[in-house]
């Protein structure tokens, strides 16, 4: 075994670092570090910068514009962009839909949609969850009934992240209600401007508009927008979910959040001493630092064993559980670290150009809301309980 990077890997890391130093706008990195609001323009700006370098669709095959990275290079890229406080790449088009299209889509779908995902023409959102089908996705009820050259879609999706920005939604819909619940599901691409599509915001506990409900009323979708075969959508959905989880440990972002937490703990005072020197807080910090370092290695092991493709389900479930627990604990400690200044909430302070007087330390404004926002991590993408079921199935074979 050799945990050190080889010369090529060091050269690649240096290349990524140099790129981030030169091209990641400080303004965006500050927003990420301080948990300030990123709007659509911010995210599009970062996507465009990565695309210009050929690094946006970095999991894509070379023939479709991917960079052909090794698993180690992917890991380096994720770690370095995280550490630099780069905004996350919004995954819906790039790392959820695109792999499905590339593997199961028609040539026409690939030629039409893939370039538009890369250049930002189309913003995609995900239509999986429904009010009655969250982690139990196979219970979904949104129906698509064939009518000539079209499907007629009726139903409701929910928890649609950043759906308010989206031009298109990829949906799981029920095309055959008479068979077993995992069968009879199809994978459909729907233009959000089609009559009968309605997006309603859901405001989360931190007061932010991040997710939505999407309603479909007699929405007519051309049959050419079906991906793969009718009633085979569950296969594609599972493929997508395993892809979604390869980056789910979020090691780079957690390393950065932890570094910032250490800064806060070194700055905040308790009885005239830095909080980082308080034995109880120091122990909490050390535990999370150790777990994070372990996670970093676990993540690298899984990525390399998977050869850069989709991680096996049980391993990605482990990464999802432990990665999200660690991230949540970091936000928990950050919230505790600022003490009573976790309580004030001035929403405008999270916007760019706010020049009001900060309440407490200037890094305090976004911390408690970030803590609350990140409670989602153990719920979405299949709750951590569902992930434990996946591990159980793989290990117990029951």
């Amino acid at each position, binding site marked *: 075994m050799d945990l050190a990077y080889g010369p090529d890997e060091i050269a690649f890391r240096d290349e990524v670092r140099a790129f981030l130093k030169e091209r990641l706008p400080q303004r965006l990195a500050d927003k990420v570090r301080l948990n300030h609001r990123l709007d659509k323009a911010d995210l599009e700006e970062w996507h465009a910068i990565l695309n210009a370098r050929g690094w946006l669709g970095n999991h894509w095959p070379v023939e479709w514009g991917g960079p052909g990275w090794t698993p180690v290079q992917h890991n380096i890229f994720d770690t370095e962009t995280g550490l630099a406080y780069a905004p996350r790449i919004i995954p819906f088009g790039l790392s959820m839909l695109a792999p499905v299209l590339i593997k199961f889509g028609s040539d026409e779908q690939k030629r039409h949609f893939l370039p538009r995902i890369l250049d930002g023409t189309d913003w995609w959102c995900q239509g999986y969850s429904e009010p009655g089908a969250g982690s139990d996705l196979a219970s979904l009820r949104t129906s698509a009934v064939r009518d000539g050259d079209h499907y007629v879609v009726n139903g409701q999706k929910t928890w649609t992240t950043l759906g308010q920005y989206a031009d298109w939604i990829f949906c799981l819909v029920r095309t055959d209600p008479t068979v077993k619940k995992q069968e009879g599901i199809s994978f459909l691409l729907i233009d959000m401007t089609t009559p009968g599509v309605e997006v309603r915001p859901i405001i989360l506990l931190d007061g932010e508009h991040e997710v939505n409900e999407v309603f479909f009323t007699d929405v007519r979708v051309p049959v050419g927008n079906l991906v793969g075969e009718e009633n085979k959508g569950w296969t594609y959905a599972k493929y997508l979910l395993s892809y979604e989880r390869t980056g789910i440990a979020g090691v780079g972002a957690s390393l950065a959040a932890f570094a910032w937490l250490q800064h806060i703990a070194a700055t905040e005072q308790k009885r005239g001493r830095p909080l980082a020197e308080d034995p109880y807080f120091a122990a909490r910090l050390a535990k999370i630092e150790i777990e994070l370092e372990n996670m970093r290695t676990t993540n690298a092991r899984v990525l390399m064993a998977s050869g850069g493709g989709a991680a096996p389900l049980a391993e990605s479930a*482990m990464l999802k559980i432990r990665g999200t627990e660690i991230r949540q604990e970091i936000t928990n400690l950050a919230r505790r670290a600022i003490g009573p200044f976790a309580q004030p909430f001035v929403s405008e302070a999270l916007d760019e150009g706010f020049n009001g007087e900060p309440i407490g330390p200037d890094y305090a404004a976004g911390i408690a809301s970030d803590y609350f926002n990140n409670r989602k991590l153990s719920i979405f993408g299949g709750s951590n309980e569902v992930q434990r079921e996946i591990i159980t199935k793989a290990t117990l074979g029951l």
Partner: protein
Amino acid sequence: MDFHHDDDRRMLADTLGRYLADRYAFDVRTRIATSEAGWSAEQWRAMAELGIVGALFGEAAGGFGGGGFDIAIVFEQLGAALVVEPFLGTLMAGRVLAGAGETDLVEQAIGGGAVFAFAHGEPQGRYELADIRTAATPTAAGWTLSGAKSVVPQLEAASHILVSARTSGEPGEEAGISLFVVEKGAPGLDVRGYPMIDGGRGGELSLDDTPARIVGAEGTAYAVIEAAVAAGIVALAWEAVAIMDVLKAQTIDYLRTRQQFGIPIGKFQALQHRMATVALEIEQARSSAINAAAALDGDRLARERAVSAAKYTIGRIGTLAAEEAIQLHGGIGMTWELPLSHYAKRLTLIGHQLGDEDHHLERFIELGRELGRTG
């Protein structure tokens, strides 16, 4: 970056694994572990002939390994078979002796002719490496030692005992500690042996003007001891990971087959989630053991942080894995008859060797401050 062992190491693991499966089956192990001697000189010699001791030392000392992952691969196999032979003491003392140029002795050990014990911890010491009170006094012929050493694994088995003692300074100071070799049967040497709860034997050593030969430079052994303990922690971490794998496999098997209320108990979600948590925590423990092995031959601060992180992790997850394995087995998990209970005991007691999780968490924090000061 590469997470595969090279071919030589894989072959060594296969060889040792096959030997242990053939010759160190669980009933054999239990007979040895509970015997009056608490180890088997015959097994020791046979394993030495296979090259297992040689794998723990570098070429300069007559071995053919000695790296972090050599230790890892050996102790992983030893852990899976719950071997009680005196490998840990031989590893730690041998590394000190090899570092001091005592290659003759190390070569004897590699050939199976010598067995070492590492007698460092004292009754009051509680894992603090610098809390040494045993006193060394210069004499015309060399040195004599007086003091006491506690809970030394396989002390009675050792032909040579490596003892730390103060040549100057006060208890708690890093400076002034030296290392000595004491031979079995030396005058003033008393060994009180006893069985250990997890098998094999340990012993209390008392020294009363016992003649001893100094090893290495006088007064500067602290760094050498710290490095030897780091190697010992890598060994324990891999032993622990192997035991966790055994516990996991046996528990999964039990959950699949044991029926309650007409169905396998593994169908119950409460048990499934506990098993899934143990499974993912074991992967974190394995990662910490990998990190420690990788850091063993590097610079001191990185090495010590990685071994303390691993020992903390192994302590925390080891207790979890042992307790959950017993709980998920129910009453049968409490029985002497079931091998699992012995694996659980060994895993738990590894937490008491070379520093428990609290000790190493505190140490990890202090090393972090040191890193901040120097870096």
